[in-house]
């Protein structure tokens, strides 16, 4: 595909543009290693010459429980999203029930609802049910970001599975549940990976639901950890930026290990909120 065509000047320009684009990310890393007394230096050091790990020590000391909560919430959201979305995608793509079009329409509209509005409704409901500040409550709320997207991805992907494959399994005597489980799901691996990646990333990054539904409890995710750091009066910016670096680890892993799934997800019309 890529035919390198004597375009080294393009590479040079590309590296410069990428550098410009990623400068804020570099600056985050730079500040995370800067000593307290240098953080407000003017003009700032461009490199962490007298680097320190104080920021990361603060993260290890204070933020680890938050990271744990975020991991649990992220994995829980992935699981819930897959359980709900994969069967629905199969039904919409292959069984085509009457009313399926309407459901796809609803799923599309659902993606357009601002999170802050969902959060207010959830807050009222959770308050009455007494499930504010609980991990399952947060998982449930976070899953609303991913489920509509996930159903649409599964539907699009499973439409491409040859009908003969499914018919063969049915003829062999497998019922539909079994066909779904041992024929459709295994060949849908790519869709499962894409959906899982985005569900995890969105739950991990969520701030709206975390701050409204889990702001006061013992189980707070990493996004709130950063937010509370910023809100403190003695702003330790190296610690804030170190936490931000830690919070960016899933993004980095994703880009390194699963780049093609990311591109597939974006081009499939992912609406990030």
């Amino acid at each position, binding site marked *: 595909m890529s035919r390198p065509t004597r375009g080294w000047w393009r590479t040079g320009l590309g590296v410069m543009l990428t550098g410009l684009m990623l400068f804020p990310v570099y600056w985050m890393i730079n500040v995370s290693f800067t000593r307290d007394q240098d953080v407000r230096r003017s003009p700032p050091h461009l490199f962490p010459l007298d680097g320190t790990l104080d920021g990361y020590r603060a993260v290890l000391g204070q933020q680890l429980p938050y990271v744990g909560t975020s991991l649990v919430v992220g994995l829980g959201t992935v699981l819930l999203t897959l*359980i709900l979305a994969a069967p629905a995608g199969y039904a919409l793509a292959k*069984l085509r029930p009457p009313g399926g079009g309407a459901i796809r329409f609803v799923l599309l509209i659902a993606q357009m609802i601002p999170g802050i509005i969902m959060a207010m409704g959830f807050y009222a409901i959770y308050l009455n049910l007494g499930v504010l500040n609980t991990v399952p409550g947060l998982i449930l709320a976070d899953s609303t970001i991913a489920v509509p997207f996930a159903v649409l991805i599964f539907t699009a992907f499973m439409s491409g*599975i040859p009908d003969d494959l499914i018919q063969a399994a049915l003829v062999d005597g497998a019922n539909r549940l079994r066909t779904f489980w041992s024929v459709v799901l295994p060949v849908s691996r790519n869709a499962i990976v894409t959906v899982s990646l985005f569900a995890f990333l969105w739950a*991990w990054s969520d701030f*709206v639901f975390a701050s409204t539904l889990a702001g006061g409890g013992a189980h707070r995710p990493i996004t709130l950890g950063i937010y509370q750091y910023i809100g403190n009066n003695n702003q330790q910016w190296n610690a804030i930026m170190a936490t931000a670096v830690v919070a960016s680890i899933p993004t980095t892993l994703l*880009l390194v290990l699963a780049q093609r799934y990311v591109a597939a997800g974006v081009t499939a019309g992912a*609406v990030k909120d």
Partner: protein
Amino acid sequence: MGIDVTRTPRSATVREAAPAVPTAPSARRRRPGGARWAAWAFLAPVVVYLIAFYAYPLYRNVELSLREYTVRSFVQGGAPFAGLDNYRAVLAAPTFPQALLNTLVFTVTSLVCQFAVGLLLALFFHRHFPLSRTLRALFLVPWLLPLIVSASTWSWLLNSEASVVNAGLALVGADPVNWLTSPRWSLVSVIIANIWIGIPFNLVVLYSGLQAIPRQLHEAAELDGAGGWQRFRWITWPLLRPVSAITLLLGLVYTLKVFDLIWIMTRGGPTDSSTTLATWSYRLGFGNLLPEFGSGAAVGNLLILLAVAAGGCYIGFEHRRRLS
């Protein structure tokens, strides 16, 4: 139905290549009522889920906006019905015109700039060159970072005391700017950060749109002596129009929703100068010691109307495109 987000060029080719579509009618003839029940059994969890965790919270939100809530009645129930009072109060509030204007400026400026930069970059990366794939992947980073990470990083980049941006300005002899703390610049600051976050999405979608344009068209035009600008004007731009429209509409829906970024960078301040409908709604409901859930929900519902109107345009557009 013409309502599929996945109709980007890449998945469109996948779909056309798949044998599923032509064989569908015969497959349907083979199975009577049983398949219908099976279909609904597979769909039931998601339908229940949508009702319980989408429709019901939205219903509660509407209900909140129609009653006169206090903290006490919020917990215990029994808030008196207030009709459209909350909406009247919100529309009459001095914050409303400011928030509406800010929402429009924020959305339009972000969209135009993200799209323009994204398109230029897509054209740049369209010609493969050494390392182009890796660099393109790196461009995704801002879009995938948690918003709170981007927002706090930009807060520090633009802070008044010792920010690197002001240091850069000093190098070229300009005066330092109070990016986040002056009413003149706060909206500009959050727009800059939002453009930065949105560029990757525009780049990736427009790039995939460019890939779908047949190379032969360009080659033929080149033989006929068309220059680079002419080829862009008469081939790339018209053929890219469907993808451009979708990119802009998805961007519109996304940008209307932006809340975290502004809240973390400026909290909508100073004095409402960067308040949008989304941040105003949050501030009313959660940002003060004495929450005003009724008004907050009313603002939120006005925002939904805007978002759904934008979404309606998108769906209508997709529908027309599918028909043609």
